[in-house]
């Protein structure tokens, strides 16, 4: 082994050690401004690598207009869009502020965010509360129904969930995800098991601290009625696990994959916080009745942090039901997705295992060298938004990360290592 290869190997072993040592615990729900002190009026955090208004896709623009009305920065959607075009809002990526957000990924000062603390390293990561399926802000929805739900999450549900979490000292997520994998979840497009486990963990404390039984009933029904409730928790968990892996000199491990609906971006441990970007791909999947591929927006969201830690498309073998939902074929084909991702990762997670694959661990530690060498792009399970603002989710599918991101990253990494 050459000196360079040896340095990379040692750095990557350290990256894997940090991934597997992570101890993420869901500890609280607080207003975003409290979690992220750098947030200020008219600042909007979005999914993906940096993007300005002129390059934002339709659903991202719809969400921006909606959140501006929600925060009281604009009187209506039309005025909000005009203000955005005139530069009234400061757009920044969630990833730059210890946060992640699904699809459009709107995070602003008054929204409640769930707090996941990585107790092995002391860092925290944040994500808003999942709104449910269909016409919701993360898919670009922005009408009165969407904004009313956000107000309830801010004023009712969020504080109640935060109070329950604080009273119980938090909910450890690694064992919960391990059980979810045995219940058919992959934590991106299927969160039925983990949502049920979270409801079971949260409801006694929520009941104990409830002042209004009708409100308690509404809150519990909201969790129980949303199969994807756990997704946002899994995302904050992924961010909390991967952030301590950033900045390991000579490591080729991917620390973030993210999309803003226009660009796909990745970050690599050894190249720090630089984004390597390429145009996003179009998901291939299944559409809700009345919608087709012609309605679809390209790939979007910070939710690919789930794949970055070895879940989602990487754990497809654990979730045969989702393979059908996202149009990825049969149960045996689902297993093939996981086996393929093992070709581009450095190890298997010893604690997150898949029964149907003889308890092999989920593929972990994406190595840019292996992606470029094999030409196997990471597989991502994703929801599909309508390409126009204001409509919402129209389907779900599978999409690949663009290889161009990994090729760019490899060249930059090689330059940094003095290899030409």
């Amino acid at each position, binding site marked *: *082994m*050459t000196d*360079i*290869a*040896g340095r*990379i*190997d040692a750095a990557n072993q350290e990256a894997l050690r940090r991934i597997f040592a992570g101890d993420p615990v869901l500890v609280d729900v607080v207003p975003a401004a409290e979690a992220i002190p750098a947030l200020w009026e008219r600042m909007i955090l979005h999914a993906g690598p940096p993007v300005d208004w002129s390059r934002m896709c339709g659903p991202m623009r719809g969400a921006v207009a909606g959140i501006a009305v929600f925060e009281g920065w604009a009187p209506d959607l039309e005025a909000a869009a005009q203000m955005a075009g005139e530069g009234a809002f400061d757009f920044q990526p969630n990833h730059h502020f210890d946060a992640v957000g699904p699809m459009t990924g709107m995070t602003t000062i008054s929204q409640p965010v769930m707090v996941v603390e990585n107790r092995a390293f002391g860092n925290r990561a944040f994500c808003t509360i999942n709104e449910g399926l269909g016409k919701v802000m993360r898919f670009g929805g922005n009408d009165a129904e969407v904004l009313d739900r956000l107000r309830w999450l801010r004023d009712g549900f969020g504080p109640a969930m935060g109070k329950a979490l604080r009273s119980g000292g938090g909910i450890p997520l690694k064992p919960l995800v391990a059980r979810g994998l045995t219940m058919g979840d992959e934590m991106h497009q299927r969160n039925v098991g983990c949502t049920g486990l979270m409801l079971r963990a949260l409801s006694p404390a929520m009941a104990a601290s409830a002042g209004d039984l009708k409100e308690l009933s509404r809150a519990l029904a909201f969790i129980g009625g949303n199969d994807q409730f756990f997704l946002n928790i899994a995302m904050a968990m992924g961010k909390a696990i991967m952030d301590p892996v950033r900045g390991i000199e000579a490591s*080729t491990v991917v620390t973030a994959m993210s999309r803003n609906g226009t660009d796909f971006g990745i970050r690599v441990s050894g190249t720090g916080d630089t984004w390597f970007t390429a145009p996003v791909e179009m998901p291939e999947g299944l559409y809700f009745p009345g919608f087709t591929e012609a309605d679809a927006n390209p790939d979007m969201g910070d939710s690919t942090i789930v794949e970055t830690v070895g879940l989602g498309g990487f754990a497809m073998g654990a979730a045969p039901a989702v393979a059908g939902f996202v149009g990825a074929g049969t149960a045996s084909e689902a297993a093939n997705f996981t086996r393929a991702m093992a070709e581009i990762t450095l190890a298997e997670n010893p604690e997150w295992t898949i029964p149907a694959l003889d308890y092999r661990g989920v593929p972990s530690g994406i190595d840019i*060298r*292996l992606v*470029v*060498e*094999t*030409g196997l792009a990471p597989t991502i399970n994703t929801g599909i938004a309508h390409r126009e603002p204001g409509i919402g989710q129209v389907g779900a599918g599978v999409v690949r990360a663009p*290889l161009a991101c990994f*090729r760019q990253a*490899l*060249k930059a*990494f*090689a330059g940094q*290592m003095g*290899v030409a």
Partner: protein
Amino acid sequence: MAAQDTASETRKGYSVPSNDRSPVNDLLDMPLRVVNIGLESFADDLTAEGAEVVHVDWAPPAGGDPELAALLAKLGA
């Protein structure tokens, strides 16, 4: 090999069977069991003809890009 034993040289240097009944013809008369490497469409065509095919999903490193392949070699991939 039997094929070499029965081959003669043409003016262009290609080996050709010296009789009508080459081992290749014998092979094609038997049920085929094929390992296909690379282009999957070759395997699909054979499968459509009823042949038993194992496809190996292979591509040159870095998709055949010499610059990236050289970098990968230096980076220990």
